[in-house]
């Protein structure tokens, strides 16, 4: 492979007085990986500068260098005209760079206000000024459109979406000239993203620069001004206009190839067979009530709904990880009451939070992939690591795991590749029914297309799939049948072909079909 | 007990003793449990001080650490170094019995100090304190005093040392037996841990459980400092107290007679000094000059004496 050709646009071209941040040939090396390998970046005051790149391209590493978490091994950074090399996160913050990290960086047992002002608490002789902190937090939250989140509430008790708001509040609590956002929309629902964009526009109107990272191209088109594309730690294109650059070109710069389609082409409805999964009147008080659904072999059933509508809890209950208050779950006619029974019966689940719920971060990839199936490889209790590795390698190849190889610890993989490991776990296990909770969260465009294909292929082979996603196009593009969940109730069901995005969104938000649409 | 270590040892200066004349050089291996307690501390310092009295003795200290297993290791190492004789205060006589036998079989005589080996093959000489006798003496003193006062059904308290040690059991048994002679029994018994804080805590609890008390026996004068402090703090004085072991502080208090402590029954660490002297004689093949026998006898048991205000002056020099 050859190094990417230097593009004319890779040369920074902003006028000097506008440019607040400039990176030249920045390099960051981790043991065995050149995470950044000559990055060029230039950000102007008051713009939203988007960073695009595949999983593992180095986006998070780049912003951590800016935030003083990592130190660049080579290269130059200029911040507001001065050379810049923050030694600590505090130094970066003082210089006016605030960061919203990809992984939630909150302390569960501190309140919302304390989290927002962590590290720079308003205080008098070391005593925290709780009223001041609370009122300032309340202001910021109101500005963020979330006045309903109480500043005194413990972060532990907040749902994921609200935690993301608190992360944002923390960034705004600094008097920042540049705010870096690493996939802030990954855990946000549709309407929350709109809210986020409103705030970003407010910020840029004040001349604050924003670096925005996302895998969702539509978002970038919506909010972004200019785009810089990273591939394998290098800038492959810089300062492309966000709105007008063709998708084909962006994807090409990111992946080095063109992706013809995102969703696999539509297919014929799967044959009518007896249902594999039958859920009847499942209820967990406070989470969801009276949910009934079926999944047939080879069928992909998608559940749309807002964050907080209880879909994760539903999946976990079906999987046997939570005890239902009422109702039954049957897999191929047999009741499922525990995770072990579910796994034994051929059910698998890729949970919502892969790091805390699915991965042994310090263990090698192949041991993570075979976590649910190592007993099947084993002979009389003795494990067959050779067999596990070989099988994992095949699966890794079919998922196009990057970097290849199954021995390195999962911790060193980028988020999207970690997700592939989780999906791979169930491909290995001879799964008959796969429960997927937000499977493409944080996964790049290329890998996403691969994952979609993998899911389709599984269905073609007769595996039933129950898919939860907050991205409506994903549900519509992938599923054969769509269910809509709202506040714990299943309010709609129809074949995917008979429903469109607007209808689903309206159902999700208002709970009713659009006027004039047939029910 | 004293804050000045040099006052703390009891040695036989051997004036006018023929055996004191320098003989062939003797290497004495010495092993005692780790000392975090005054009595054991005094054992080691006495041994060192006594060895210092002889120009022909070299003392090899191998302290035994925190438990019987560590002491076994220390003894194994000591045996490999082939001293002429080993003086050992075992963590527990029964647990170290095998170590004693091992040394004897290696041709090294063993002087057992304080805690007896069950097997006679495990030692050449045994110098024992009398734990049971200590309890007996304390019980007898308390019984006699109470009887003299005419108390008919007295409330008697007991503060023991570390309860899982056999010596504690022996002391308590002796105490119960002696009290039974007078028809008395122990109303409440707390175990401490041979530390001053332990003594203070246990005594506080005991005083709380017995709002009125006639007599108290505390097994150990070292933890007795804490016991006396607790009694002061509770402002109690309606009873009298007997101590154990015979520390310098206890003897001083008894002499001054300004606290509830009226007597103590001895269990003197001076036995370590005697052990070193006798070990030297055994190694040199000499006997004890007052005995007719040519060799040192096999067993010596110290008697537990009762120190009161009347005879305290006499015992002052034995206080540790």
């Amino acid at each position, binding site marked *: 492979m050859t190094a990417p050709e230097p593009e004319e646009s890779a040369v920074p071209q902003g006028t000097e007085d506008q440019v607040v941040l400039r990176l030249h040939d920045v390099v960051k090396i981790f043991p065995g990986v050149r995470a950044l390998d000559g990055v060029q970046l230039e950000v102007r005051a008051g713009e939203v500068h988007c960073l695009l790149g595949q999983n593992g391209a180095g986006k998070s590493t780049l912003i951590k260098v800016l935030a003083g978490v990592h130190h660049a091994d080579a290269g130059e950074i200029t911040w507001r005209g001065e050379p810049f090399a923050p030694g600590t996160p505090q130094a970066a913050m003082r210089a006016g760079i605030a960061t919203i990290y990809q992984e939630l*960086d909150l302390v569960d*047992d501190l309140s919302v206000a304390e989290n927002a002002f*962590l590290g720079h608490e308003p205080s008098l002789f070391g005593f*925290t000024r709780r009223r001041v902190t609370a009122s300032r937090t309340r202001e910021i939250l109101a500005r963020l459109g979330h006045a309903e989140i109480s500043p005194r509430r413990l972060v532990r008790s907040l*749902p994921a979406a609200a935690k993301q708001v608190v992360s944002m509040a923390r960034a705004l609590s600094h008097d920042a000239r540049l705010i870096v956002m690493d996939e802030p929309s990954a855990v946000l629902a549709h309407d929350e993203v709109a809210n986020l964009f409103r705030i970003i526009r407010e910020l840029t109107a004040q001349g604050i620069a924003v670096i925005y990272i996302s895998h969702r191209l539509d978002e970038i088109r919506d909010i972004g001004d200019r785009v810089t594309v990273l591939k394998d730690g290098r800038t492959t294109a810089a300062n492309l206009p966000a709105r007008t650059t063709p998708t084909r070109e962006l994807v090409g710069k990111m992946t080095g190839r063109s992706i013809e389609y995102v969703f696999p082409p539509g297919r014929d409805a799967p044959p009518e067979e007896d249902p594999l999964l039958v859920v009847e009147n499942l209820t967990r008080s406070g989470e969801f009530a009276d949910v009934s659904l079926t999944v047939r072999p080879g069928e992909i059933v998608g559940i749309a709904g807002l*964050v*907080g509508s209880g879909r994760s809890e539903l999946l976990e209950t079906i999987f046997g990880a939570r005890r239902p208050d009422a109702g039954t779950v049957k897999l191929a006619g047999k009741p499922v009451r525990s995770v072990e029974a579910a796994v034994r019966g051929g059910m698998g689940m890729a949970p919502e939070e892969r790091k805390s719920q699915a991965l042994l971060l310090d263990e090698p990839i192949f041991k993570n992939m075979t976590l649910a199936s190592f007993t099947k490889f084993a002979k009389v209790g003795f494990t067959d690591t050779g067999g596990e590795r070989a099988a994992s390698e095949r699966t890794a190849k079919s998922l196009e795991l990057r970097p290849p190889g199954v021995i390195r610890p999962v911790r060193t993989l980028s988020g999207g590749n970690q997700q592939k490991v989780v999906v791979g776990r169930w491909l290995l296990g001879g799964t008959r029914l796969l429960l997927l909770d937000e499977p493409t969260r944080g996964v790049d465009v290329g890998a996403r297309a691969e994952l979609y294909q993998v899911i389709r292929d599984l269905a073609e082979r007769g595996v039933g799939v129950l898919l939860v996603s907050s991205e409506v196009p994903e549900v519509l593009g992938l599923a054969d049948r769509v269910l809509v969940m709202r506040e714990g109730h299943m309010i709609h069901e129809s074949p995917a072909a008979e429903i469109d995005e607007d209808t689903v969104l309206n159902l999700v938000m208002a709970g009713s079909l659009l006027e004039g649409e047939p029910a | 007990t004293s804050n000045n270590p040099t006052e703390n040892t009891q040695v036989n200066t051997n004036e006018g003793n023929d055996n004191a004349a320098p003989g062939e050089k003797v290497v004495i291996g010495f092993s005692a449990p780790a000392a975090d*307690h005054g009595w054991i501390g005094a054992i080691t310092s006495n041994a060192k001080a006594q060895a210092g009295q002889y120009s022909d003795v070299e003392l090899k200290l191998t302290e035994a650490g925190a438990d019987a297993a560590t002491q076994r290791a220390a003894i194994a190492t000591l045996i490999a170094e082939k001293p002429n004789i080993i003086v050992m205060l075992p963590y527990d006589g029964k647990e170290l019995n095998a170590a004693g036998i091992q040394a004897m079989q290696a041709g090294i005589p063993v002087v057992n100090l304080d805690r007896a080996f069950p097997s006679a093959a495990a030692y050449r000489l045994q110098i024992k304190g009398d734990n049971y006798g200590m309890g007996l003496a304390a019980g007898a003193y308390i019984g006699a005093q109470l009887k003299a006062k005419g108390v008919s059904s007295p409330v008697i308290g007991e503060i023991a040392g570390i309860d899982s040690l056999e010596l504690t059991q022996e002391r308590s048994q002796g105490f119960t037996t002696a009290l039974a002679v007078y028809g008395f029994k122990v109303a409440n018994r707390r175990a401490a841990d041979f530390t001053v804080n332990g003594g203070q805590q246990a005594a506080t609890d005991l005083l709380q459980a017995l709002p009125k008390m006639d007599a108290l026996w505390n097994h150990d004068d070292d933890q007795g400092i*804490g016991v006396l*402090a607790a009694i002061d703090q509770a402002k109690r004085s309606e009873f009298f107290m007997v101590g154990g072991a015979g520390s310098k502080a206890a003897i001083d208090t008894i002499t001054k007679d300004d606290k509830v402590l009226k007597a103590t029954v001895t269990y003197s660490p001076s036995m370590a000094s005697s052990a070193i002297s006798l070990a030297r004689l055994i190694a040199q093949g000499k006997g004890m000059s007052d005995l007719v026998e040519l060799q040192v006898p096999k067993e010596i048991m110290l008697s537990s004496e009762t120190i009161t205000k009347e005879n305290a002056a006499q015992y002052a020099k034995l206080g540790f």
Partner: protein
Amino acid sequence: MITETLPAEKREPRRLDEGTIRNLGLIGVLVLLVIIGIITRPELYSDPAWVRNNILVILQQASAIGVVTVGMTFVIIGGGIDLSVGAIIALAGVWCTTVATQSFGAAGMIFTALMVGIGVGLVNGLLIAYGKLVPFIATLAMLVAARGLAAQISDKQTQISTNETINAIATTRIFGIPLLVYILAAVAAAGWVLLNRTTFGRRTVAIGGNEEAARLAGINVKRQTVLLYVLSGLCCGIAAIMLTSQATSAQAGMANLYELDAIAAAIIGGTLLSGGRGTIVGAVFGVLVFSTITNLFAINNLETEVQNMVKGGIIVAAVLIQQFRYQSLTQLFKK
């Protein structure tokens, strides 16, 4: 949207947080222990003067270990552990009762004890924060070394405190309540304020709950870690004075196994061993449960071995009672 899924707080029934519920559980355990005491020794409990005095005795017995537990709670909340507390007390106690130190009078002794505590805590903290030693190993090494040094300094003898002022600390009562109890109350109150109302406390929770997040928020994790061990050392210094005064003496073996007691009290009081969560009030209740148990055994003249068997059972029961209460209460609030 979050508004819809999250009931606004005003409309929510004022929810007891887990900490409070745990503390209620511990009060329940305490009440239960007292009831057992009343049932087994009614004649003692029928005397109000005795009961009053008994409460003071329990508090007094809890005072020194309570002070240590406050420091330990901070260390554990901050994600560490301090196995050397007992050894620090011994070293501080022995150091402040040497003949030389005693010649400087009470102020000199108190100063010495506090300085020794702070100094050892500082070494612990530096080893852990900058030497990158696991707290368990670093403080275990310190345990061994500090006890050794204490034995060396005291020449393995019990050192008597002849200072009347120091010795009076244990006997002084103010409004009928022992000074020692006031000291515990003051330390606990200061600890509560420090944990809940200062940046120091909030940062402690942060580094214990999510060290990476704390670091990213610009908190100097290393310095905070050092300070936590210094705080624990300081508490040990205070406890050393209290114990020395109570026993009118100090010795290398004093405060034996205080580390286990303090950790157990903190955990029973709701502190997470993995860090990030804990309450001072709970820790103090934990200490009180333990000293009430000891008191109960004493007034019932239980033998040591029976005591131990029963104590194991009570610890398990206490934790189960807390859990039971918690679950049943959350059940209640669900409905």
